[in-house]
């Protein structure tokens, strides 16, 4: 089986944060399978390292392969993103409350970027090039890519 590893799993392992045990357990559980990442995940990891060579060594140690040339299912990615844009609400990233921000001066409705394309590119990659994904943040994948298998610890 081929499994996509989401950035948050790897950042959790590399930083040994409070979610380390869960991330390590997930990677360990499926370690007999092939782990892959795409360029989006690679770049999200890369900004945390002083150089890409150090990242390469860490990825090699965990036998995680960067796929540079891969199948892109633009239709599926666009459909999911379009679906998200139609339902989009402004949600406070801290408390989760849905808000309608308005400028106090001109009364214009304000917008800010939420959930940009990366999630959809990663899910589209995982869907077209692997059997599923391991992630610590599955909500949007479940909502917008219901056919994508999310591997769990249980």
């Amino acid at each position, binding site marked *: 089986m081929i499994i996509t590893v*989401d*950035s*948050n*799993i*790897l*950042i*959790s*392992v*590399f*930083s*040994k*944060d*409070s*979610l*380390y045990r869960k*991330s*390590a357990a997930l*990677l*360990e559980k499926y*370690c*007999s399978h092939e782990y892959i990442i795409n360029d989006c995940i690679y770049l*999200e990891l890369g*900004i*945390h*390292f002083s150089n890409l060579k*150090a990242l390469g060594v*860490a990825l090699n*140690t*965990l036998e995680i392969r960067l796929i540079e040339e891969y199948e892109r299912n633009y239709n599926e990615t666009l459909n999911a993103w379009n679906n998200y844009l139609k339902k989009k609400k402004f949600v406070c*990233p801290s408390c989760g409350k849905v808000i309608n921000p308005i400028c106090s001066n001109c009364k214009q409705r304000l917008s*800010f*970027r*939420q*959930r*940009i394309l*990366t*999630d959809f590119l990663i899910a589209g990659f995982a869907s077209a090039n692997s059997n599923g994904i391991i992630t*610590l*943040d599955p909500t949007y994948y479940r909502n917008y890519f219901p056919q994508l298998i999310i591997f769990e610890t249980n």
Partner: protein
Amino acid sequence: MNQTITIRLTPKRERLLKLLKKRFNIKKNSEAIDLALSMSFKDDADYRSRLEKVSGSIRLKGKATAVKRIRSLRDGM
């Protein structure tokens, strides 16, 4: 005290057992099963040590978790 378990020898198990015995020049089924079990456990232990080896190679600011860090990157915040 040793315990005895009985397992059904399905065609797939029989084929894999034969392959294992042939590859490692083993005659007894029990020895082949011992070897397969210890090999599979060794792999896990090996991967666990690799995880330990790369852990702590980066630092996140404060008490941020990887989920929050990646979320903020993707949300552009």
